[in-house]
């Protein structure tokens, strides 16, 4: 039989291979070739949306709510960012928050994946830990922020604990769900080839849980950012949350919005980083 990989075809189109088999062709990187009519690419649409949002914001703050005590315009925010960056103040705040986030998020990721794998494979651990996990996941643990400041002081670690608490359960729950949803078909197939339980775990359960684990980690980004800011609002010397609190107290709208915009931008950046990772690491889930 002489089927050979043939030239790139539009995604999901079917061609009749020489054997007479209907062959689904892999998508070409250039995507479908559509007839002339200009069509916006997905990222162009998103970009357009952001730009029009910014314009709207500028319009609102210039014309509709022309009160600098309530709202700062995007241009004022940019100016504030530049000024703060020049004085170096911005970097100290960003640095503090970034450190808290990075520490909390990494600990939560490692802990979450570890505990998730444990409870997915060990029924005793599952039954032992499940009530705590369900309880903590459903509780707004962020409200415990003041308690941690009391215990750990207003430094980095009280924030780290809040981030860990907010992120870890999402990761645990997703990791466990991923391992447990491993298709019995694959396990059975591997068993028929004489796979040991260990091989089943490493070669089937882990890869098929990977998309879930990544989704849990992605979910954790937003939760972690919230944790950092709110924990800092409860009490801190430095950080974007602290910056937001202080500028709100002094009605410094440009600085407040500057901090919020930086948070939003880092959230978006990390999320798209994850989407990229997902495409690279678990391409089979996207079709």
């Amino acid at each position, binding site marked *: 039989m002489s089927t050979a990989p043939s030239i790139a075809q539009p995604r999901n189109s*079917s061609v009749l291979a020489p054997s007479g088999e209907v062959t689904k062709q892999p998508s070409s990187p250039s995507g479908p070739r559509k007839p002339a009519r200009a069509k916006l690419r997905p990222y162009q649409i998103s970009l357009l949306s952001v730009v029009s949002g910014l314009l709207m914001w500028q319009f609102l703050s210039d014309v509709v709510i022309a009160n600098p005590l309530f709202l700062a315009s995007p241009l004022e925010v940019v100016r504030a960012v530049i000024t703060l960056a020049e004085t170096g103040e911005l970097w100290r705040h960003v640095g503090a928050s970034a450190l808290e986030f990075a520490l909390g998020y990494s600990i939560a990721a490692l802990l979450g994946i570890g505990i998730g794998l444990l409870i997915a494979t060990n029924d005793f651990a599952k039954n032992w830990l499940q009530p705590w996990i369900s309880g903590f996941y459903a509780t707004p643990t962020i409200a415990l922020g003041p308690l941690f400041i009391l215990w750990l002081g207003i430094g980095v670690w009280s924030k780290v604990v809040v981030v860990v608490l907010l992120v870890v359960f999402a990761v645990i729950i997703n990791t466990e769900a991923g391992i447990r949803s491993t298709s019995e078909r694959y396990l059975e197939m591997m068993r028929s080839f004489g796979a040991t339980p260990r091989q089943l775990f490493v070669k*089937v359960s882990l890869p098929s849980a990977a998309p879930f684990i990544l989704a849990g980690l992605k979910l954790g980004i937003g939760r972690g950012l919230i944790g950092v800011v709110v924990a800092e609002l409860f009490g801190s010397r430095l950080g974007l949350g602290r910056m937001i609190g202080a500028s709100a107290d002094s009605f410094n709208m440009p600085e407040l919005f500057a901090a919020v915009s930086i948070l939003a931008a880092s959230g978006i950046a990390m999320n798209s980083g994850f989407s990229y990772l997902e495409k690279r690491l678990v391409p089979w889930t996207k079709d």
Partner: protein
Amino acid sequence: MSSVVSEHLCKRFGDLEVLQDINLTIQDGEFVALVGPSGCGKTTFLRTVAGLESADEGGIFLNGKRVSGPDRDRGFVFQNDSLLPWRNVFDNTVVGLELAGRMSPDERARVTRLLELVGLAGFEKYFPRQLSGGMRQRVNLARALAIDPKVLLMDEPFSALDAQTREIMQTELQRVWEEGRKTVLFVTHQIDEAVFLADRVLVFARRPGRLLEDIKIDLPRPRTMMTKRQPEFVALVDRIWRLIEKDVRESVLVEHV
């Protein structure tokens, strides 16, 4: 030397007697097809030979040794291809060798030739989602052949394919089998497929599942599309169909109640 022996094999799922006293012997290098109405225990029988189910009474013997679990002397070709979506064609094909820790350059070269044999040369780097149903079943077959098993167990491997692809795959399977002459146990619903491929067709009956008839197929090889039009072929298909017709009707009715 005999290859696969089933001795007084009985299998129950709870109160349901799925296999009742199955006695048969499959010779080394023989191609045997199993047909029978839905629910008569064909899959269960095949899984028991594979070691994925255990016998309640009697047992399966492979070259005189009792089967107690899955091993790499038997290769299973699944009805749903069960290809791992995160592995490309080559990595899916070598999975059995990998589990056995047998991944030498020699073996890799052999697998490359095997993929050629099943008509997948050039597709090594493709992922399952990029393949058609027929190609996926070729990988499924190559994966089972890669461990170089003594016995090949195939459970309706072509049932998910369209009619034309199916015919092609039948001829292809025959060609691949001629190259290696492994012992094959092939379950199918399609009687003409069974007659076309097999040296012997085992007809199962249901409630309880048991061996009804053992029919020798003496058509000369290699068989071609023309074989299916010969009167001998048609007569064999007819004979087998009449054996299971009543059972099939019943099973269809039962399943629709």
